[in-house]
């Protein structure tokens, strides 16, 4: 005889009870392991989507502007494509998608991605299956594709062509791409809505021959190489090994003493030059990868929109930009390059002014150059006139001169400003003063034969043109008529896009271009390499750890399974009470006996965990099925599939063993307290227990303190009250336990009263049953209070919101803006226009981790009038929005986020500072349940400083007259269709977020209901066990004349009492826990659905108890009496 012999005998003899315990552990293991599998599956699915959609693409080279297609040859193997976003409309079905991905591709792309069939040719367009479905497009349909028209000259500069921001192309549907070949550079769990168009056709229509904006490269350049063979099978940590290295700003170049001080930008600025393709993850700097290094070696100045021109008179090199403006980073590199070669660099800023005016005489439309050379005046307010201009103006040295000029300000309007100067000298129109090359190339102006041929993107009053002006143009073209100091000129006409129009290098050196290329980091000029695969894989780790969430969601189910495990184990021990007493009398110490039971429990826990592995697979598959179907809104994709992994299953099994063993140990905790004689008499529970009253009181006090803290604002109301409710539940269970354990004098009563006395027969069992039911009621009743409907202050009082695929440059609130946009008058409609930095959706709608979230720029007027509710604010300012204009000592950019996005997607806290895409942000306030869940909000001033290349407005909030939002939306959608302007009700946006939350709550509730099912199983088991143990008592009652139905009533009364105790306790505690949530919803409680739910719980519980009681009472009771 060995201990294991006894163990084996025990396991085999009590196999029914042990099987129940084993199943309980298996259930808990299944739920734990299933939750872990779920997290693994979501991550693997997201990774699989990324890898499938990227195909062979590992890294990309991208620029918002276009660059030479030939650069691909220098980075072999690389494939040139044009990647844009556009508006797609099927002419037959009139269906439209305002945010489709557009790829200009040719055979090289098709071969690179190993796609079947042929690429689109000539006028063909291929749609992804999802887009074809959405547009109801069929082969042969005519498709109108509207894409942003590239403009080297910034739209928000004077010479930007704001009326030509889009290009419409008509194409014919060739076919739909196979679903598995949906290419996407952007990680997204939803369907890919993209079109493939011939690269050559797109280049032609966009007037970008031989140019592209994206190069796709294989993974050999990516920091994390991953073969196609291992796609979808690798562990998430592989993606995590990739780290982005930011290239430090070229500080050394800026500290050269010869660099003009006015060109020193803020140190952080070069890090945030961002001009990526809209379809690629935005990034601020180079990644430091091999591709980055190769790109730096192989790019040309033309690839970043720069060129050098050798001028004869004066003999110099002129560095110019396609945008007609040279940014500060490029300027700094140019100065550094010139200095390294011992060359002299001369910066120039040339501007077109509307008028030079002296004492009522004026010269219209004149070119003025700001410079620091010999032609420059000595004084800041001085001006040098050429003798032609002086003569026309009748100006003499010392005269005041007014320069009147247009400026395009960030308020989306053209302003006419004026500046006063004093004539410092007059120079002959000859030599350096007669240089038309001082002006950059302005489309619509420079090549015009006469003034009357000018076609500038701003108003031109031709009536002011005099014959002498035409003669000047005819003879001197863009030769400046006046010269001012560079610093003054930069103050007047400098923009965020740059403060120079050219840099002249003396003497002209063929080495300068090479030196500039070497000095300039291409990422500072917008040409960047992005390890898109590595970054997407990192994002695929997910915003949400679904494994963790489903452990939370399944928490009640796990607790129920463990309570049930404990209950069955307890029943098993109670069944063996006398046996324990005998062992004690034979010399077994209590600890030895406990060790024996623990050993038994361990065997059952291990066996249960092994069985639970299968249950985990089933549970994971079931929940994934739920996520693909019933709870689709929680994830927004039907592509989730089960990815089983040994570590996840092993983790679930290990957790199951620990949980099972813990439960067994907890069940055995009372074994010490019972005397051997009590055990021999069949008693297991020690009585009475004052500690229950004391502990219950302490927990109740703690609950009251927590509720008080929540009321006083010391802790969050929702969390505080929920915690208080949960504690109250524990306290109530302790009180009930104390009450059931207390000895009470017998009270006379009827059949029901006699039944209720039976509740005290095994108080431990009764409390466990109450706990199971109360927890279920608590969870289910609480969840309904958190369910959200559409009514919310999160819309800020705005009725509509809109995203625009192409930026609006004009202010739709102004008459001139409406005129430019061809908008009809819209009385009572007010727009709030936001600048937008495209990026990752930071809301719950995106399963991928938002690594570079969308950034919105809130205009100053909005900050002063916005009416949103805040969940938390860093400090106590009267208007939290104005915190966006504060300047934290750390230099971080103040940002506001929605509280949900901040917590669950960005995983940040209020007041936290963090770096994202090279920018350091500080969350200064968190909005409560707002429509701003997809983005971070910063001030417009900070936005323009951080993202100077960003242009126009792409997000709008609209106030409309009551009842007019529908017609207004339709009018705007039609009028601004070319911009992909898509007005929608703000309530619908909030509802889409609420749908996700509500889907999660439904998930939680469904899993809670499963837990409840276990609770009723427990209740039934206890009912049956009680009847079996009390057969002699019941037989005696039969002998005394009780009929079977009397006994049934007696037992059922006992179970109904437990059930009602549990339900009322759980519901009452839930009422406290959800008080703030209910109050926030205006006191609205879904009484009907809640009552129906609780009634269903009660009915289920009573039905299961009735069935168990009926089965137990079916046995012949009188034989029990005979055996007495």
């Amino acid at each position, binding site marked *: 005889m060995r201990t294991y012999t*006894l163990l084996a005998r025990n396991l085999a*003899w*009590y196999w029914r009870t042990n099987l129940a315990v084993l199943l309980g552990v298996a259930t808990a293991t299944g739920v734990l392991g299933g939750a872990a599998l779920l997290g693994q599956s979501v991550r693997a699915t997201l990774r699989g989507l990324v890898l499938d959609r990227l195909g062979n693409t590992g890294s990309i080279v991208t620029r918002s502007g276009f660059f030479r297609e030939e650069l691909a040859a220098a980075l072999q193997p690389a494939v040139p494509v044009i990647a844009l976003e556009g508006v797609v409309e099927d002419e037959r079905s009139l269906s439209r998608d305002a945010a489709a991905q557009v790829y200009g591709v040719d055979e090289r792309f098709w071969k690179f991605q190993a796609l079947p069939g042929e690429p689109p040719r000539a006028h063909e367009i291929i749609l992804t299956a999802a887009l074809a479905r959405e547009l109801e497009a069929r082969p042969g349909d005519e498709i109108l594709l509207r894409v942003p028209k590239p403009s080297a000259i910034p739209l928000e500069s004077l010479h930007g062509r704001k009326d030509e921001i889009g290009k419409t192309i008509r194409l014919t549907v060739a076919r739909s791409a196979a679903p598995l070949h949906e290419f996407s550079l952007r990680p997204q769990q939803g369907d890919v809505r993209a079109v493939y168009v011939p690269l050559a056709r797109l280049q032609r229509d966009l007037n970008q021959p031989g140019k592209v904006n994206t190069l796709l490269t294989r993974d050999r350049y990516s920091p994390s190489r991953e073969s196609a063979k291992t796609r979808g099978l690798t562990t998430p940590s592989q993606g995590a090994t990739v780290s982005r290295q930011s290239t430090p700003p070229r500080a050394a170049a800026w500290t050269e003493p010869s660099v003009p001080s006015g060109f020193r930008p803020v140190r952080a600025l070069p890090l945030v030059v961002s001009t990526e393709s809209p379809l690629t993850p935005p990034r601020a700097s180079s990644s430091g990868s091999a591709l980055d290094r190769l790109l730096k070696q192989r790019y040309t100045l033309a690839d970043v929109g720069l060129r050098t021109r050798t001028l004869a008179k004066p003999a110099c090199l002129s560095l110019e930009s396609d945008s007609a403006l040279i940014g500060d980073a490029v300027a700094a590199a140019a100065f550094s390059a010139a200095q390294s070669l011992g060359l002299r660099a001369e910066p120039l800023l040339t501007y077109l002014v509307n008028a030079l005016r002296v004492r009522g005489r004026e010269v219209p439309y004149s070119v003025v150059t700001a410079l620091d050379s010999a032609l420059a005046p000595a004084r800041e307010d001085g001006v040098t006139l050429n003798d032609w201009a002086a003569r026309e103006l009748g100006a003499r040295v010392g005269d005041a001169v007014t320069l009147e000029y247009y400026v395009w300000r960030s308020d989306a309007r053209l302003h006419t400003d004026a500046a006063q100067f004093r004539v410092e000298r007059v120079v002959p129109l000859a030599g350096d003063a007669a240089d038309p090359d001082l002006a950059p190339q302005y489309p619509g102006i420079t090549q015009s034969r006469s003034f009357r041929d000018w076609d500038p993107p701003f108003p031109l009053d031709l009536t002011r043109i005099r014959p002498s002006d035409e003669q000047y143009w005819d003879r001197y073209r863009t030769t400046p008529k006046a010269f001012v100091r560079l610093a003054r000129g930069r103050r007047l006409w400098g923009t965020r896009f740059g403060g120079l129009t050219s840099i002249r290098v003396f003497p002209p050196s063929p080495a300068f271009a090479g030196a500039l290329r070497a000095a300039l980091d291409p990422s500072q000029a917008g040409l960047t390499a992005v390890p898109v695969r590595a970054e997407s894989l990192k994002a695929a780790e997910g915003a949400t750890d679904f494994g963790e969430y489903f452990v939370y969601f399944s928490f009640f189910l796990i607790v129920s399974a463990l309570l049930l495990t404990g209950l069955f184990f307890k029943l098993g021990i109670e069944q063996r009470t006398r046996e324990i007493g005998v062992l*004690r009398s034979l*010399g*077994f*110490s209590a600890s030895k006996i406990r060790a024996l039971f623990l050993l038994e429990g361990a065997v059952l826990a291990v066996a249960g965990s092994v069985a639970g592995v299968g249950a985990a697979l089933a549970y994971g598959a079931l929940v994934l099925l739920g996520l693909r179907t019933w709870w689709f809104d929680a994830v927004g994709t039907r592509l989730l599939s089960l990815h089983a992994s040994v570590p996840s299953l092993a983790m679930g099994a290990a957790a199951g063993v620990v949980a099972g063993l813990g439960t067994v140990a907890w069940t055995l905790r009372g074994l010490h307290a019972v005397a051997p*004689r009590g055990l021999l008499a069949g008693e297991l529970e020690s009585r009475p227990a004052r500690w229950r009253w004391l502990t219950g009181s302490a927990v109740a006090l703690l609950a009251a303190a927590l509720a008080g803290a929540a009321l006083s604002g010391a802790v969050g109301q929702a969390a505080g009250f929920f915690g208080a409710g949960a504690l109250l539940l524990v306290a109530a269970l302790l009180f009930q336990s104390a009450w059931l354990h207390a000895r009470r004098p017998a009270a006379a009563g009827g059949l029901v009263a006699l039944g209720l006395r039976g509740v005290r027969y095994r108080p431990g069992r009764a409390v466990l049953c109450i706990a199971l039911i109360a927890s279920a009621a608590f969870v289910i009743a609480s969840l309904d209070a958190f369910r959200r409907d559409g009514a919310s202050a999160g819309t800020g009082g705005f009725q509509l919101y809109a995203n625009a695929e192409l930026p609006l440059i004009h202010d739709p609130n102004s008459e001139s803006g409406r005129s430019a946009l061809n908008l009809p008058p819209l009385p009572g409609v007010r727009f709030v226009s936001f600048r937008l930095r495209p990026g990752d959706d930071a809301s719950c709608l995106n399963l991928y981790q938002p690594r570079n979230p969308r950034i919105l720029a809130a205009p100053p007027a909005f900050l002063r009038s916005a009416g949103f509710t805040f969940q938390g604010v860093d400090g106590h300012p009267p208007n939290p929005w104005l915190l966006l204009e504060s300047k934290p000592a750390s230099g971080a950019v103040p940002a506001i986020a929605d509280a949900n996005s901040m917590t669950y997607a960005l995983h940040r806290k209020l007041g936290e500072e963090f770096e994202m895409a090279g920018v350091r942000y500080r969350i200064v306030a968190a909005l409560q349940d707002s429509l701003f869940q997809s983005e971070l909000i910063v001030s417009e001033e900070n936005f323009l400083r951080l993202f100077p290349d960003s242009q126009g407005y792409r997000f709008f909030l609209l106030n409309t007259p009551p009842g007019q939002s529908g017609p207004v939306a339709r009018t705007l959608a039609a009028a601004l269709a070319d911009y992909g302007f898509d007005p929608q009700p703000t309530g619908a946006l909030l509802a889409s977020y609420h749908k996700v939350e509500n889907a999660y709550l439904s998930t939680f509730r469904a899993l809670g209901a499963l837990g409840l099912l276990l609770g009723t199983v427990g209740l039934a088991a206890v009912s049956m066990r009680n009847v079996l143990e009390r057969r002699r008592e019941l037989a005696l009652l039969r002998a005394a004349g009780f009929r079977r139905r009397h006994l049934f009533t007696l037992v059922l009364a006992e179970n109904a009492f437990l059930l009602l105790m549990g339900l009322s306790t759980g519901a009452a505690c839930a009422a406290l826990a959800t008080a703030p949530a209910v109050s926030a919803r205006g006191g609205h409680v879904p009484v009907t659905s809640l009552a129906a739910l609780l009634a269903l719980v009660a009915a289920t519980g009573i039905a299961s108890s009735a069935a168990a009681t009926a089965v137990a009472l079916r046995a012949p009771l009188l034989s029990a009496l005979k055996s007495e």
Partner: protein
Amino acid sequence: MLEIANLGKQYPTPRGPLTVLSEVSLSLNRGEAVAITGPSGAGKSTLLYIAGALEPPTSGSVTLDGVNPYKVAEKELAAFRNRNIGFVFQDSCLLPQCSVLENVLVPTLVASGRAAWPTRARELIAQVGLEDRLDHRPSELSGGEKQRVALARALVLRPRLLLCDEPTGNLDEASAEMVAALLLRLHERQETILIVVTHNPALAARFPKRYELRHANLHPAGA
């Protein structure tokens, strides 16, 4: 030697303490046997359990060969019981999941020197006449047989004190007679101190020393 001195036992009740034993003294040497009778609720089993180190007295002391088991720690108390005391209960209290041999060997699981016990168990089983029932489960035995197994189990570790609580209470006359004879024979052979609590006058009559528990104290039978 078993020395019970001035033993008292009270139970708390809502109406105040209930005295079950008061100033009970008893002294027994090795090989002595005594039967205790008395009406139900007189405290016979309580006295037995206190003597067997299963229930502490309210006052007084119990020593077995000079050791007071109530003055040692719980773990040592269990070891003391295992080493020195054997119990036979009214309803045998065998483990239903174990065979006859295994039941007899159960106490050896927590005893030292394990190697010799199986032989000893088999001898005892043979002495109680069940050598052909070694592998039978308790459910396959009659009441008398069960009690014989319980007796073998109580004696397997050669206890110095054998305590029997109504050992024939559930048995018919013949079985009771057989168990009683066996009990006394084994007692003689083992030279244990034997205390038997019984209602059965026939059984009590077989003991040279008899006491009656009345009014919370022991009185010589017939006195």
